[in-house]
């Protein structure tokens, strides 16, 4: 293995973030009571500067660390989005944490380390790099869920998340080892090359792919590997739910693309059928079960599952347009989820979680502006134009129609009609029902601004989706 210093500069964002994470950790340990505040500022600064570093180096591509680290358009865009999303996540979560005596420096340190893990996953050029990033991300998140030590449900959620997450990692690793057995390689590009060359044992290869797909399915939360997701979303403190719902899905999507498209793109006929199953089941179960929920966090969890189904729809088309559509969907999903959970945080206050659907009754009277933002977010998640969620669904369905899988496209549109029901129910509660609580809803000004930007972004991207779509389309082929 040769190291060239000049090449290492490609990984500057990760290195910077690692250094800052360590500094934040030190600050938390030494500053005592003021540690949390310092950690918050430092982590926001870290994310901002990392984003700037990534932005400055857009267009520069290459690999380093002997091919285990890739810097390309795909990784740059996703990393940039991950940093921005996590900045918003930290902003949203701070007031929530403060109100619940959870405002501790550790939350921010873990968040930064977890973000680092996501960035490593996105840039991975080697199976082991993927695993490294995945574990760094996941371990931090297990700890974050468990941070609310006094809460019974949070502890339960953390246990569940940890055990199932570890199992999934094991599956993934097992699949990687089988692929290694077939191809003799762990580097993604080398695996791809040997599949292109052919003459592999296809039975063993498909066996390995099965385990990889299971691992990916677990991390994304696709049916039938979704059981952890509603429990974890519901049980975690909302701030943590927000964190694990938004950016990690982008990272998991990147992992799916790196492994299935980058590495095993030549063997797509093996994973396509598996993804069809995962995707169709996720769309159906996610949308149908969400109808029965009374807890909004749990409802959004099932909604996430259905969104994952749609993202997989784009991936399984195995066309460049499909990958681009899936990427667009993943980005849009994280933006919408951010807003959705952000709104729950906004509504909650000390001793009141605002996680029941009935808590949203009459929001249209208590605060028309917030209700309008929530309306935009819900219609967007339901996929109603002119909001950005529509184009996400449109593009993945288009990619499916283009490869003539019309029956799956019909399933996709039918479940989105079913799904529309539970989003409409939130709107119904907000606008058509009388409020149960009389007092007007107040929120800190930074959150007010953030939720407005979030909602308006969903609307504006819906009116002018062209540039983001073009960006996603320009990235593929990888």
């Amino acid at each position, binding site marked *: 293995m040769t190291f060239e210093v000049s090449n290492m500069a490609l990984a500057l964002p990760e290195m910077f973030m690692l250094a800052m994470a360590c500094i934040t950790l030190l600050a938390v340990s030494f500053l005592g009571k003021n540690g949390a505040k310092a950690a918050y500022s430092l982590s926001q600064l870290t994310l901002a500067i990392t984003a700037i570093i990534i932005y400055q180096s857009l267009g520069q591509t290459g690999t380093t660390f002997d091919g285990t680290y890739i810097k390309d358009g795909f990784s740059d865009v996703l990393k940039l989005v991950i940093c921005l999303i996590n900045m918003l996540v930290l902003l949203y979560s701070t007031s929530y944490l403060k109100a619940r005596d959870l405002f501790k420096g550790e939350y921010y340190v873990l968040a930064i380390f977890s973000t680092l893990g996501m960035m490593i996953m996105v840039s991975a050029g080697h199976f082991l790099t993927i695993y490294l990033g995945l574990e760094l991300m996941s371990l931090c998140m297990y700890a974050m869920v468990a941070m609310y030590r006094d809460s019974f449900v949070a502890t339960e959620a953390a246990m569940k998340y940890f055990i199932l997450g570890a199992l999934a990692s094991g599956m993934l690793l097992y699949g990687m080892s089988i692929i290694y057995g077939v191809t003799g390689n762990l580097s993604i590009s080398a695996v791809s090359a040997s599949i292109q060359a052919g003459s592999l044992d296809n039975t063993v290869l498909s066996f390995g792919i099965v385990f990889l797909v299971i691992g990916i399915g677990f991390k994304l939360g696709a049916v039938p590997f979704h059981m952890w997701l509603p429990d974890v979303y519901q049980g975690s403190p909302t701030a943590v739910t927000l964190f694990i719902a938004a950016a990690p899905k982008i990272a998991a999507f990147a992992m799916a693309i790196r492994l299935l498209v980058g590495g095993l793109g030549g063997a797509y006929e093996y994973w396509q059928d598996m993804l069809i199953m995962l995707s169709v089941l996720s769309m159906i179960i996610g949308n149908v079960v969400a109808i029965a929920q009374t807890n909004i966090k749990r409802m959004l969890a099932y909604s996430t599952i259905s969104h994952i189904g749609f993202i997989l729809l784009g991936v399984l088309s195995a066309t460049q347009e499909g990958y681009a559509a899936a990427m667009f969907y993943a980005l849009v999903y994280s933006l919408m989820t951010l807003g959705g959970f952000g709104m729950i945080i906004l509504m909650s206050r000390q001793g009141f979680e605002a996680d029941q659907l009935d808590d949203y009754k009459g929001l*249209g009277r208590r605060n028309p502006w917030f209700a309008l933002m929530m309306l935009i977010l819900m219609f967007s998640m339901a996929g109603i134009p002119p909001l950005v969620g529509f184009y996400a669904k449109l593009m993945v369905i288009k990619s499916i*129609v283009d490869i003539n899988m019309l029956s799956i496209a019909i399933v996709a549109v039918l479940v989105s*009609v079913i799904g*529309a029901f539970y989003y*409409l129910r939130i709107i119904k509660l907000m606008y058509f029902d009388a409020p149960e609580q009389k007092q007007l809803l107040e929120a800190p000004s930074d959150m007010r601004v953030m939720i407005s930007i979030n909602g308006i972004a969903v609307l504006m991207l819906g009116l002018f989706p062209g540039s983001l779509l*073009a960006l996603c389309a320009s990235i593929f082929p990888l």
Partner: protein
Amino acid sequence: MFTDLPLLSLLIWLPVLGGLFVLVYGDKNPWAKPLSLLIAVASLVLSIGLYTGFDSSTHQMQFVEKMSWITAFDINYSLGVDGFSMPLIILTTFSTVIVVLAGWDVIKDRSNQYMAAFLIMEGLMIAVFSALDAILFYVFFEAMLIPLFLVIGIWGGPNRVYATIKFFLYTLFGSVFLLLALLYLHHVAGSFEILDFHNVSLSMPEQIYLFLAFLIAFAVKVPMWPVHTWLPDAHVEAPTGGSVILAAITLKIGGYGFLRFALPIAPDASMALDWLMIGLSLTAVVYIGFVALVQTDLKKLIAYSSIAHMGFVTLGMFIIFRIFANSATGNGAELAIEGAMVQMISHGFIAAAMFLCVGVLYDRMHTREISAYGGVINTMPKFAGFAVFFAMANAGLPGTSGFVGEFMVILAAFQADFWFAFLAATTLILGAAYTLWMVKRVIFGDVANDNVAKLTDINRREFFILATLALIVLVIGVWPAPVTEVMHASVEHLLTQVSQSKL
């Protein structure tokens, strides 16, 4: 003078942006209503420009605007109107003025949001009629649901939540198939331009599937029997303005969809399945006519009568193939399509007027039960005059616009098949029966109870609204030429399109 302006864009975005302004800044402000009226009137004036600047000698799209919107996927902001869409746009702008006026005193709760919803909806509906890009069309086609959903849900009657969610899910269910059809057509045609879709050749199975997708989407909108059940619910629960827009415009989008998509894109499938369309249309005319007869709720009765009248629209559109088969010249085909269009426009005015009449009564008595009324003419003579006039128009009295469209379609139906004409003509009896019986029970007779005795006649605002509508119904009834002339070239073009096989 209008030729230099991007008239269609103005017509779309003036109400949308104006509506947003009213929504955001109009809360509890006294100028919200006058401003809404100003925007609605300005849109009406602009849309008159469409009529005066319209060249009725050509079927080509006019007032065309084209800009790149989503460049990566070749989706354009592409607008234009022909003889089918232009009259419907004017109908839209006119109806919005009526709705704003009708809600003036009546809507007390969140009135700026009410006005804003209708203004935004106006822009979206105009966009639906003028969009020439399939995705653009679909975006507006669905976006339109959002304001109407809120209008029914917020200002509707007691069972409004059920009605509005049913309305939304029903229409969404229909439109997702439209989306699939449009995506498939893009796959075949390589472009999202609707006019390009008209030119692709498609095999019979492809056309059948596409036609069925269009059928589901537009049959729900029209609505055709048996997917009509959302309409009576939505109408009953909707506030008066909502009912007016629903009856006057959104139903027309279904008919427009058949003209713009189903017939020219899948002519062979339309021909192969015309028995289905004719059957469903005649069922709507006859069966729904009987259903209307037994209604005890005023609004429900008018809602069912709307479904029966819209049956004429789809009947007129799909008897053309039988007419072609019977005569080489196919003169009756032109009559059929034009009859369908006239019927749509006339129904837009008459149904709007009928719902406004019910609204007038409801605002005073807060009930829609027919049995709660009786002898209204004694206390509200002016109102009774209008109500009887519109009821006659609804029953298809010669001299009113209601007669023209139905007569044209029945006349054309004779050239297709005697029995079609016979069944269609039963509407003249059924329509007269349910409308006049309703009039008899509500308007005539002795004063039924104290509540009716306390009624006050319509004020100047209501008089103005109803008088304008009555005038239009009368003018189109005796002189329909201005309406039929503008669509002539487009109808002929459509007929050449459908008579050429795409196989």
